[in-house]
């Protein structure tokens, strides 16, 4: 899935830069980029930087927040991440987002620092990101030919209730055989994109996500459930959780969806 977003990511010890092209397969009905793929870019970028900041220890993703103020309909969405705090127990990242040179939003991620265990990949050495801005082999050649929701095999069980389901498949997984963090964010945003338009009675789209990861999603199917907090004709907020095939709550989130700006 990461490869199909065709990302270019460049990581140094204190900063990470990345971008993905905005293509129709990752856009909402308004034609503007979906929040989920942007969250995936943030996760990819911050994860690479956090691995360096936590080195030689290992880290686990704790939470991700995303606040979009502009969602481009073409060109690229660019991200610059930096370490806000690298402590003994946590690493905090901040990621600035832009499109066409204008601010597009702000994101943050927190990682828990864990003692390195046998089997943890050495990202600094093996580098799933590169220092020269050239995508490594495993990230190159992205060719998304269908909407991202279809590529992730997301099924809409009850759209107005925000109930969606995704299988845990190789395409969506990380090295731990669990749903990749960006995929979880994408699934939650897609759920918000179903429940909030129904509640608001307007074609609102997700622009804001507060996501806390509780457990790995290893057991299919991963299902969302949602509760509307506020709904107005211009924006709404929902609380959304993911539940894995064993009935375990694996992530808790809230999302805001707003009416998209009219295209220029």
């Amino acid at each position: 899935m990461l490869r199909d977003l065709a990302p270019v990511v460049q990581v140094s010890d204190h900063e990470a830069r990345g971008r993905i092209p905005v293509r129709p397969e990752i856009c909402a009905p308004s034609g503007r980029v979906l929040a989920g793929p942007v969250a995936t870019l943030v996760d990819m970028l911050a994860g690479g930087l956090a691995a360096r900041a936590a080195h030689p220890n290992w880290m686990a993703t704790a939470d991700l927040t995303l606040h979009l103020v502009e969602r481009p309909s073409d060109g690229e969405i660019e991200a610059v991440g930096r370490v806000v705090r690298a402590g003994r127990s946590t690493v905090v990242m901040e990621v600035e987002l832009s499109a066409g040179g204008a601010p597009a939003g702000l994101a943050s991620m927190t990682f828990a620092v864990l003692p390195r265990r046998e089997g943890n990949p050495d990202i600094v050495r093996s580098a799933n990101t590169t220092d020269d801005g050239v995508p490594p082999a495993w990230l190159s050649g992205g060719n998304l030919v269908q909407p991202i929701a279809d590529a992730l095999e997301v099924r809409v069980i009850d759209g107005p209730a925000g109930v969606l389901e995704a299988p845990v498949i190789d395409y969506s997984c990380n090295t731990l055989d669990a749903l990749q963090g960006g995929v979880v964010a994408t699934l939650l945003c897609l759920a918000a994109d179903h429940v909030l338009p129904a509640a608001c009675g307007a074609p609102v789209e997700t622009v804001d996500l507060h996501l806390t990861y509780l457990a790995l999603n290893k057991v299919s199917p991963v299902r969302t459930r949602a509760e509307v907090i506020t709904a107005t004709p211009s924006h709404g907020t929902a609380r959304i959780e993911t539940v894995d095939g064993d009935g375990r709550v694996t992530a808790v989130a809230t999302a805001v969806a707003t009416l998209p700006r009219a295209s220029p």
Partner: protein
Amino acid sequence: MTETERSDGRAFSYWLGLELDETTEVGADRPESVGRVDPGPDLRLPNGQVRAGAMLGLMDCVGGLTSGLAALPRWVVSTNINQRIATLDVHGALVLRSRTRRVGRNAVVTSVEARDESNDSLVATGVLTSSILTFEGALPVGTRPFCLRMPEGRAPDFPPLLGIRPASPVSVRLDLIPQLRNPWGILHGAVIGITVDAAAVHVVEQHTRSPGVMTDAVVHFVAPGRVGPIEAAGTVIGERPDGHVVRVELRDRGADDRLLTVAVVTVAPV
């Protein structure tokens, strides 16, 4: 309130008026707790709505107790908190219920839900993440189940809005007076929420020349505030139908401008 109570680092809890109770059995794997507060004028805006920054502080207190109970015999320090506001129009007492969502080796996640006691409507929802640490000295919970009640007598003196005042068109400042310190002598986490609120609203009002009110927030606690004055500076990231998105940074001016907090909040038009 006696001078002893005034100096024990709990003065700000008394200012909040928050009463706390551990509600699960002692030793429960997933502790829960409840807080109750009758929001007085200090916790409200001039228009009578509850301050979202105060709500953030209350959530931090209630979620923090639950996290600490889950981490015993160790204790916790807040790492970050996020909040979504359903309404700021609160007519009765606020009841905040917190439950443990995850207890890991190094971190605890708790969720907090605030409701208006007068009609049981949802006021706000939030999630607090805390780091577990080995605590030296007496733990902040003594007798179990834990219970915190307001003392009899006069409340400690506080300057209006905790002494937060504009410092520039994009920043506010406050002095780190003893009443704003927690039992460990550092800036109380709940003060941070109110300061973030004040800074974000100030910068948006300067930007738009019209009144605003903070709603949603994400706050990352980066380092403790020890010296003061504390300065909070805001930057408007952009505007959406739900309001302006603002990044706020708190720094300790008296400690080489040390970065204390990074927050992103939404400021809605009034």
